């Protein structure tokens, strides 16, 4: 199902949690609502599910305006962060509960519940109660319960944040598998950029209730519209270097280093205070005399197949990857090229991309 939101706004008193959103969620796709805590992503989810009333704007499921529709009529499935399983019911009863409410005959609903349990791989745990399940198993049961009534839209609120690191990896693959298998339009909320990047078709990045950018994960990474987007995505985080534009080149704020870059626009605003973003993998050491900039190696840390080096650019410090084959010692200067991807200029004041 296609979901469209139109000038959607939510205010709590004076506080605007979601500010004038216009967006589409594509049919059959997995979309992440990504952002730091308090950015309004859960509020958005709750408005989509109908738990929270909308202040302004409209929500459309395909052609239907569901803005004022009560949650139970919207045909959505929702998985809460704490899973919200009913502790007194068995796994099977939990999964079958939505059908029990719909008064589906008992044999039929149990049959269906078993089928769902099989889909999420909990079919061996049917008689257990939630208290006797691990976090990952509870998660699976919660997903099965959300899917059993064949919702038009599946909403997942921070589905992985209560799991330990290894299980998190496993469950995010599972969510993707189940989503592809059922083809249900899915929106999931997360504050973890890696989670969003790894399994989603599209990421909607939010901050303070305002849409920052919506794009496919790789687009978001390669082409951030502003400094916030660039900083939020990527591990290690992108390097931010403060400086000014002089003569169509970037000069660090203490004038120690000048960076010329072929992909800079030809008419950069002279004298503008800017922030240069360089991803750690965007700088590569130069074997010959040609280079885009020079930095002094401060320290090196091995990461296995490569090393992470800290460079001094004047009084500022950046992180870049170094191949282990280079033996430059800390304290030495090294020349670097910049790749065509992963280098961005932002206005210092507004954070907008230049």
């Amino acid at each position: 199902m296609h979901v469209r939101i139109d000038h959607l706004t939510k205010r709590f008193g004076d506080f605007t949690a979601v500010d004038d959103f216009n967006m589409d969620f594509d049919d059959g796709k997995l979309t992440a609502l990504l952002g730091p805590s308090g950015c309004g992503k859960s509020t958005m989810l709750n408005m989509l599910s109908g738990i929270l009333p909308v202040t302004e704007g409209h929500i459309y499921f395909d052609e239907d305006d569901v803005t004022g529709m009560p949650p139970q009529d919207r045909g959505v499935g929702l998985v809460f962060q704490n899973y919200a399983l009913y502790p007194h019911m068995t796994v099977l009863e939990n999964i079958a509960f939505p059908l029990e409410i719909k008064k589906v005959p008992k044999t039929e609903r149990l049959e269906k519940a078993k089928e769902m349990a099989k889909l999420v791989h909990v079919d061996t745990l049917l008689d257990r109660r939630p208290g006797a399940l691990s976090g990952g198993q509870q998660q699976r049961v919660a997903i099965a319960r959300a899917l059993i009534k064949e919702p038009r839209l599946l909403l997942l609120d921070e589905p992985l944040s209560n799991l330990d690191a290894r299980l998190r990896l496993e469950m995010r693959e599972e969510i993707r598998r189940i989503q592809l298998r059922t083809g249900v339009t899915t929106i999931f909320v997360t504050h973890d950029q890696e989670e969003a990047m790894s399994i989603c078709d599209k990421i909607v990045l939010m901050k303070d209730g305002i849409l920052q950018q919506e794009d496919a994960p790789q687009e978001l990474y390669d082409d951030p519209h502003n400094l916030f987007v660039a900083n939020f995505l990527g591990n290690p985080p992108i390097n931010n270097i403060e400086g000014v534009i002089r003569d169509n080149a970037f000069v660090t704020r203490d004038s120690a280093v000048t960076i010329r870059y072929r992909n800079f626009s030809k008419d950069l605003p002279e004298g503008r205070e800017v922030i240069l973003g360089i991803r750690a993998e965007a700088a590569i050491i130069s074997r010959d005399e040609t280079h885009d900039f020079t930095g002094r190696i401060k320290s090196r840390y091995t990461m296995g197949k490569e090393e992470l080096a800290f460079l001094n650019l004047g009084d500022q410090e950046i992180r870049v990857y170094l191949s282990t084959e280079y033996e430059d010692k800390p304290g030495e200067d090294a020349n670097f090229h910049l790749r065509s991807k992963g280098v961005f200029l932002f206005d210092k004041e507004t954070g907008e991309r230049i």
Partner: protein
Amino acid sequence: MRADRIRHFFVYFFLIFGAVIMLFPFYWMISSSFKTAAEYNSFPPTWVPSNWLNLDNFVRAFEKRNFFVYFLNSVIVTFCSVALTGIVTILGAFAFSRLRFPFRNAVFGLLLAFMMVPFEMLVITNYQTVTRMKMVNSLPVLIIPFISSIFYTYILKNFFDTIPDSLYYSARIDGASNWKYLWRVMVPIAKPSLVTIMLLNAISSWNSFMWPTLVITSNRYRTVQLGLFTFMSEAGSDTKLQLAASTVSILPMIVLFLFARRYIVNGVARGGLKG
């Protein structure tokens, strides 16, 4: 090590001492109801009746008066009281815990303040009310005035408050109404709390004495406790008959407690939620 053992010795000594003081009256009551007249009146006292199967006192106690009727009245009153109070308490607690309505907290605060009014004061006004309603000398008069209990509602509301909102919203999205959610989710989860409330209610209803004395004068509607009281004059000096009747009167509460204890202790573990 040594100091520990001495400490343990004293701890257990005092615990056992306390237990003996607590249990002795019960032992005396129960054992005496099996004694013969000679055993009961002997001095020094007989500690153990010669025949534990001597049911003579029980038989005579039941013959003496409509003890069976009293017993039945008590059972009816207690059962109805527990059931009705339970329902009213559940509905009240749900409303105060989950529903939003104007002045909810103010109303609840006011109710809590009412709890400070002593029972004895209410007795007078309640008595006037039931006399005017011509309810005196009936079984409902023992039940209806106590149907709503602020105290029980307060306990249950507090428990309901601990059930996370996400369960509620989850059920709502699945299409469950408030009513369905209450009975299918909240009540089963709150079972330990509910059993505790019902047990307390059953005990106070079974043991209530002051109110029945005031409003019941007819033999037909006497409860066990009233019956025991009148028994004192009727059985005269035959204390062991009274003790046999008393033994019978506490029996249901003991059975009830043994039965309900399992639910209180084995309360549903609060699984199914993380975070």
